């Protein structure tokens, strides 16, 4: 932790998230997707690379339920998991 005594070049400066804050999922609408993701993590020894499909599904659930701003998956780093053919995916990626 950064304490007041730890002054100097090692001070940590928290930065705001790029896309802001997630609204809370009070109704638990995406809880199922979350459980799938957690199960995948537990099965694969907590390796994130193997569970990216589940995390993508969770974020899509959030977008569908107004819990996250809708954005193309490429902008969130899931460009390789998008089902659309490469030509269309490039068109989607263009701003």
């Amino acid at each position: 932790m950064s304490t007041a005594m730890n002054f100097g070049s090692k001070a940590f400066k928290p930065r705001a998230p790029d896309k802001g804050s997630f609204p809370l999922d009070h109704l638990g609408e995406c809880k199922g997707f979350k459980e799938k993701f957690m199960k995948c993590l537990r099965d694969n020894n907590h390796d994130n690379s193997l569970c990216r499909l589940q995390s993508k599904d969770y974020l899509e659930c959030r977008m569908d339920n107004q819990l996250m701003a809708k954005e193309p998956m490429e902008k969130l780093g899931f460009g390789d998991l998008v089902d659309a053919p490469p030509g269309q995916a490039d068109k989607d990626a263009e701003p």
Partner: protein
Amino acid sequence: MLLPLLLRPSLCSPHASAFLSRCDAARTLRSQTELFLRRTLPLRFQSRGTKSRGRKTREQDWKTRNKTVLTYVAAAGVGMIGLSYASVPLYRLYCQAAGLGGTAVAGHDTDLVETMKPVKERVLKVTFNADTHASMQWNFRPQQSEIFVVPGETALAFYRAKNPTDKPIIGISTYNVVPFEAGQYFNKIQCFCFEEQRLNPHEEVDMPVFFYIDPEFDDDPRMARVSTITLSYTFFEAKEGEKLPLPGYSYN
């Protein structure tokens, strides 16, 4: 000086013929000394003039020397004041170049998420920690103890918070990344920090953190030995009507 004068007359008188030259010499010496003495008197008067002239030039010398020294000292003082004013932007530039203290690294934008390529050889372990302030009554804990990610790949992690009390509590959180130097490469796309989160009585929610580690992490020689990054969140209770200054947010 008077001693030779005393000696010479004794030499002079007994052996006149032999020491004639010496007597003559003594006489000339005596006359010379008298002249010298006479000369010293006016010289003393004269010397006051030269000495005063010397003193004057010496004083002038001192004055000019003092002036130059004072000028140098004043210039140094002004230089120090100017340096202290200029140090603020200079330090900021240096921090941006060296990336100290977790300040933003140049080229950090949202397009990076789209175009970055995961560095599959470098596997990093991200451990999670959850804390609450002493007066905060939420149960706050991570849902996974660790997760293995690679730089350049977006990752999702979950925390869980439960409000066990009978009244709604509003919490606000901040985070910390250890080691500090790795904090500049740790980019959060979306999380639950820095904004008020309200939990109703006996409510339990999942709080996700969507982040990635900058692929430049692998190129940094200072990070060569870093293989574990710890993300730590701390929840505080937010008072009603209190506005916290949020880092990086601008209130329009």
